């Protein structure tokens, strides 16, 4: 089987909310002839962008789920994942980055490097994803791509190098100057589909030459050949492209392109750049863990003849059952092949293999290394590895952030009750950041996730897709408890009520754990607690961690050390020692000065400078600490750390404070102790709730 892996590009498109990701993807699909008409995100035709296939996405004008598609450009296959911009759906971005080889980071030429761009860039760095930067919206009033490129260097720490210059800006944006070819590019035709190369306008020539010098200086660092040629004044297009590609793949260079997707300018050269500068699957070193060989790291070889290694990175429950998005790293998968889920050891047969294009699909016979495809009817979890039966490998798992907000939902009738269960079952399988459980005390169904919008979307989807009408309670913050000092315990559990009794004594101490959630240390000597009951103590402590006594929140950051105890030849048992450990924990916990911790969010509110005072005031009122402000032209960004508990409904407040002109984003920063007065309220509320039951 011949598989030209050099001609495959797996790319993601990521950016701050409203930077134009979906608009750009729509153009890419149009120019690569995957679609035959352009529809806008909030277009008057009401069709909505191709990649926003969910009704909710079309209505709200945001991308909720990452969508996969592919296209062909210059004889290459380009697999594209369009990802959401809102931080609540960050898992979608994480999933995409895990399986992509390269990315396009879109920035707004007016807004510049915004808070979410920093988050996305950090995610790309975590997964070592080479990236090119596209400064979009150069047609907008206030566009300043030079400033944005500077911000890329300063705020993102990338070695940004301009590959293009805009010809005109704002409403005068006419085209771009290619600094490699040293030609002007114009985009003719109704939809900018006809590329016309021309001479660089005379008034921009000096600047173009200066910028090209900068480009040559930066690129020469990656190619001696180019450096010599540049000194002799004879660098060729091929030499520059090769050097920039090398720098980009080494994550030491970030080529910057400019344009306006909405005005159909600069998209085709961006596609050229994807081919020229972003890696083919074989350019990236991916490792798997050899489960049969003590989890030793193993570098996968993108060879179709080798045994299959692939990663399921996204699940979707659709009309035809579960759809599993898979990226193959090594080997090939064919219809009818038997593959193994390395986590469960279960063998499955590939029934249908499809290539996804938004919500449409195309049947294919096989997929080779580096491909992104979808499988039908395979039961697995997000992050599972599928391999050929002869190997046992596992790709490393993805970073999954913990939910920070929860709320109770109550179905309005019996029919909704059943449908709600089905919906929750599906959503939790698809999205590891969305969790659900039934509170054993209140019997309420609790859903938890990454933010208000995240939960809001799932409640709306329950209603629309599963006819499950639910009443949602007030959002609740996911509090945690921890201890602040060392405390000793010495507890005897003794029960004698006929039949065999229960006896166990557990002594030791607990202390704060600087890193990690829980640690159990066994310092028992001389068999004070028999070996077989040591793990029972651990189990008892672990059980106690589930619910602290202050606010009923999970307890974290605790090291439990046992150093003494006693057992009875007849009455000691696993259960007796578990209960003794629970008692010991309770005894020590109250002495260890427990505190309640709350999630603190990093908030960035952006808007016209005239509202700066009002915005800062509103964050201050919410127990926020203003970290700082950045004022540029008439635009200010206020950065603050604010407890999540105070941020519910903030979007409405911000809108009314700023005549709808400001917006904010927030992301989880850290857990910090709540102030005393707030802690008292939280404890009181918990006690009242407990007494009601």
């Amino acid at each position: 089987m011949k598989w030209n892996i050099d001609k495959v590009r797996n790319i993601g498109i990521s950016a701050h909310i409203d930077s134009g990701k979906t608009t750009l993807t729509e153009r890419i699909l149009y120019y690569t002839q995957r679609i035959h008409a352009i529809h806008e995100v909030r277009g008057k035709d009401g069709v909505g962008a191709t990649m926003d296939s969910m009704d909710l996405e079309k209505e709200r004008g945001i991308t909720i789920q990452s969508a996969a598609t592919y296209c062909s450009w210059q004889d290459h296959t380009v697999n594209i994942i369009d990802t959401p911009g809102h931080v609540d759906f960050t898992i979608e971005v994480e999933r995409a980055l895990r399986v992509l080889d390269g990315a396009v980071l879109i920035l707004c030429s007016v807004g510049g490097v915004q808070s979410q761009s920093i988050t996305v860039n950090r995610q790309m760095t975590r997964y070592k994803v080479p990236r090119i930067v596209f400064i979009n919206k150069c047609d907008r009033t206030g566009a300043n791509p030079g400033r944005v490129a500077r911000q890329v260097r300063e705020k993102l720490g990338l070695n940004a190098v301009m590959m293009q210059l805009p010809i005109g800006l704002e409403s005068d944006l006419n085209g771009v100057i290619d600094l490699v070819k040293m030609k002007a590019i114009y985009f003719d035709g109704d939809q900018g589909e006809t590329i016309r190369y021309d001479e660089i306008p005379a008034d921009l020539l000096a600047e173009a030459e200066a910028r090209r010098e900068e480009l040559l200086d930066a690129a020469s660092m990656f190619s001696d050949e180019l450096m010599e040629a540049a000194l002799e004044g004879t660098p060729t297009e091929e030499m520059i492209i090769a050097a920039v590609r090398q720098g980009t793949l080494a994550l030491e260079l970030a080529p910057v392109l400019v344009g306006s997707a909405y005005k159909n300018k600069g998209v085709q050269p961006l596609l050229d750049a994807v081919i020229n500068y972003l890696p083919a699957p074989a350019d990236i070193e991916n490792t798997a863990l050899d489960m049969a060989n003590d989890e030793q790291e193993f570098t996968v070889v993108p060879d179709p003849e080798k045994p299959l290694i692939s990663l399921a990175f996204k699940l979707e429950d659709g009309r035809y059952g579960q759809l599993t998005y898979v990226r193959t790293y090594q080997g090939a998968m064919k219809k009818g092949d038997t593959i193994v889920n390395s986590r469960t050891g279960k063998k499955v047969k590939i029934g249908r293999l499809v290539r996804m294009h938004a919500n449409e699909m195309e049947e294919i016979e096989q997929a080779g290394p580096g491909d992104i495809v979808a499988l039908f009817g395979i039961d697995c979890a997000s992050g599972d590895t599928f391999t050929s039966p002869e190997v046992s490998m596992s790709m490393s798992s993805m970073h999954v952030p913990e939910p920070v907000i929860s709320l109770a939902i109550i179905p309005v009738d019996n029919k909704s009750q059943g449908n709600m269960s089905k919906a929750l079952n599906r959503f939790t399988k698809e999205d590891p950041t969305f969790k659900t459980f039934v509170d054993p005390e209140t019997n309420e169904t609790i859903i938890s996730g990454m933010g208000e919008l995240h939960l809001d979307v799932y409640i709306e989807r329950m209603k629309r897709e599963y006819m499950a009408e639910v009443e949602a309670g007030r959002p609740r913050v996911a509090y945690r408890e921890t201890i602040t000092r060392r405390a000793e315990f010495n507890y005897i559990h003794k029960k004698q009520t006929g039949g065999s009794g229960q006896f166990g004594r557990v002594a030791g101490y607990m202390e704060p754990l600087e890193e990690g959630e829980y640690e159990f240390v066994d310092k028992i000597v001389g068999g004070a607690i028999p070996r077989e009951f040591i793990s029972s103590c651990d189990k008892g402590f672990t059980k106690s961690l589930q619910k602290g006594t202050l606010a009923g929140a999970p307890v974290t950051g605790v090291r439990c050390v046992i150093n003494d105890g006693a057992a009875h030849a007849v009455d000691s048992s696993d259960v007796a020692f578990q209960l003794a450990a629970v008692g010991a924990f309770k005894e020590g916990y109250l002495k260890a000065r427990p505190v309640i911790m709350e999630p603190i969010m990093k908030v960035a509110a952006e808007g016209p400078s005239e509202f700066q005072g009002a915005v800062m005031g509103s964050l201050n009122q919410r127990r926020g600490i203003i970290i700082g402000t950045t004022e540029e032209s008439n635009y200010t960004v206020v950065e603050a750390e604010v407890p999540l508990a105070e941020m519910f409904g903030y979007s409405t407040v911000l809108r009314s404070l700023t005549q709808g002109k400001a917006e904010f984003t927030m992301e989880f920063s850290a857990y910090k102790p709540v102030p005393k007065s707030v802690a008292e309220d939280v404890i009181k509320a918990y006690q009242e709730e407990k007494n009601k039951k």
Partner: protein
Amino acid sequence: MLDKDLVMNKTLRILNRKQGEDSTGCRMGVVIARAGLGKTAILVQIALDNIFHGRNVLHVSVGEGLEKARAWYDDMFLHVTGDLPADRAAELAEYVQRNRMIMTFKEAVFSRPKLEERLNDLVYQDIFRPDCVVVDGFDFSAADFDEVADIKDLMSSMNLQVWFSALSHRADQRVSKEGIPAPCHDIADLFETVIVLKPEAPGINLHVIKDETACVVPGKVLALDPSSMTVQEG
């Protein structure tokens, strides 16, 4: 919470108050140096010293981003608290964050009226009440006596201590009669304290050219530790 001794040995305490007492009220100081000699490091040490003495500091950065200013504080904080237990350092870090606010402006945006507007926002809405303002990156070469005097009036009216950094150039050899170099030679009378950083083998020295608060005898020279840019004792 506060740890005065911690800072006394390591930062510019001696320049930051009259000997034996905490300084209050209006006072204007400037740190003059060529590019890259450590003006921001000195300003940040002055700011941290104020914070550790229970005062609120507004750090105004002209032309640089928020992250850069924060990074300076983080670095200096580490130097100052490096020997402390982790929980104590974390407590102090939180304290510094609460008592400091960073405001950054693009060069073209910063002006005296703008600063007044922002200060009023902070104070009247009770968001943050600074005791000391450090202004890093103010372009003295483009400002005249009246403009700087106007800023001083503003600070006086709000009873604020203010510290500036000023960029000097090797080619500009002008100096005032007290030895204060350009670009502050013509406005030297406005400052109570003037510090000049000079590269002198084997490192960088801090020269106290003028100090009307009588904390230091003018002419005092202190060495900077080149690795941390903190003032060495002596």
